[in-house]
């Protein structure tokens, strides 16, 4: 009898923990970073994940203004033209303009018009010149023995390291596209590896001093600054609230004025005896 009770108790505890585990939300270590941004929180379902790393600021008058939100005219920062910008999410406003959320340092975020961000010209030039030399990637690139750090580049021969990842011996990196440069180095494009994206030099993954391809770099120029001015457009809530308060104030003020100006009739109506005494 006692054994039966103990068995049932153990079975109950086991079932309880199994149910607990099954009902726990599965979390993936690789989750998209969600910004701590008021506008994003309210409009998360309208935002699109883009994860664009190869963007440069290119706004009118030499800079891109960073706004508090796509509907707020409060400036929170600026990005000088030519500076790198990373955009995780994009929001489309009612006019059809896309706004990207960017970091402005100190854990703070702001929004910029995507029309003021361009793909790095060198990257665009590289793809234009060499895309026909690309080959399909293969699933696992396993870093050679002894390699502890893998460098991610903007593009082969860019000279720009975007990221570096510490790798374990058993790590494998998925390669979507491969390319062999003029010096025989084999490169692979990584779409996603622990939130990093870019090109790795499979022939020499831990070398962070691979030289610039001068031939590709020659003639790369920044496109002209845009002329269209794009600013946030208020959704009107603040103005409507202001108007409501003003109207309420006008109504109350006018009612008081009427009561003061036309007091006599109401006073006489309330005190007819006094009124008749006055007449006498």
């Amino acid at each position, binding site marked *: 009898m006692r054994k039966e009770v103990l068995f049932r108790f153990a079975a109950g505890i086991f079932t309880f923990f199994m149910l607990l585990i099954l009902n726990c939300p599965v979390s993936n270590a690789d989750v998209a970073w969600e910004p701590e941004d008021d506008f994003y929180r309210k409009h998360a379902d309208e935002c699109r994940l883009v994860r664009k790393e190869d963007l440069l600021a290119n706004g009118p008058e030499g800079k891109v203004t960073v706004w508090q939100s796509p509907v707020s005219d409060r400036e929170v920062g600026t990005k000088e033209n030519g500076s790198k910008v990373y955009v995780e999410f994009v929001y489309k406003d*009612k*006019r059809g303009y896309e706004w990207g959320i960017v970091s402005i340092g100190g854990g703070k975020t702001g929004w910029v018009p995507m029309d003021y961000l361009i793909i790095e010209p060198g990257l665009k030039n590289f793809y234009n010149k060499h895309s026909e030399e690309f080959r399909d990637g293969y699933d696992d690139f396993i870093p050679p023995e002894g390699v502890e750090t893998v460098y991610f580049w903007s593009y082969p021969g860019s000279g720009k390291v975007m990221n570096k990842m510490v790798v374990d011996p058993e790590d494998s990196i998925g390669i979507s596209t491969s390319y062999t440069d003029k010096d025989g180095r084999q490169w692979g494009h990584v779409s996603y590896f622990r939130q990093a994206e870019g090109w790795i030099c499979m022939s020499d993954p831990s070398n962070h001093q691979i030289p610039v391809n001068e031939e590709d770099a020659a003639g790369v120029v920044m496109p002209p600054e845009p002329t269209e001015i794009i600013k946030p*457009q*208020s*959704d*009107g*809530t603040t*103005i*409507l609230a202001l*108007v*409501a308060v003003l*109207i309420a104030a*006008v*109504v109350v003020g*006018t*009612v008081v*004025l*009427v009561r003061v*100006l*036309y007091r006599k*009739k*109401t006073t006489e109506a309330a005190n007819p005896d006094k009124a008749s005494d006055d007449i006498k």
Partner: protein
Amino acid sequence: MMSRAGAVGFDIFISLGISLGLTLVLELAFALIFRVRQKKELLLVCLVNIITNPAVVFLYYLAAYAGDIAQTLVLIILEVLAVVVEALFYKTYGEKIRHPVLLAVGANAFSFFVGKAVNMLVHI
């Protein structure tokens, strides 16, 4: 009347101003026709419309901005409320106003229909 805007700007103030101005002119005109001649009563007509008109116009604007509400029904309700409030004020404070309810109904109907006609002419 105002139509739904993609975004609200300061032109709402202009709309409210024009609406109030036009209403004051029309309702004063009707009051004169209705034999309200004392300056004090005519001032009362103005003040009462300052109380009702901006509020009615703004609430109608909000309904249009929201978009999903039957705007004609909202307009009827708002106009009836305006008439009731104006009639109450005329009855309470208008010494020489003999028929406060009739004045309120007539003045509002007059300004409403003439306002509509003006609107139509402007948009031709």
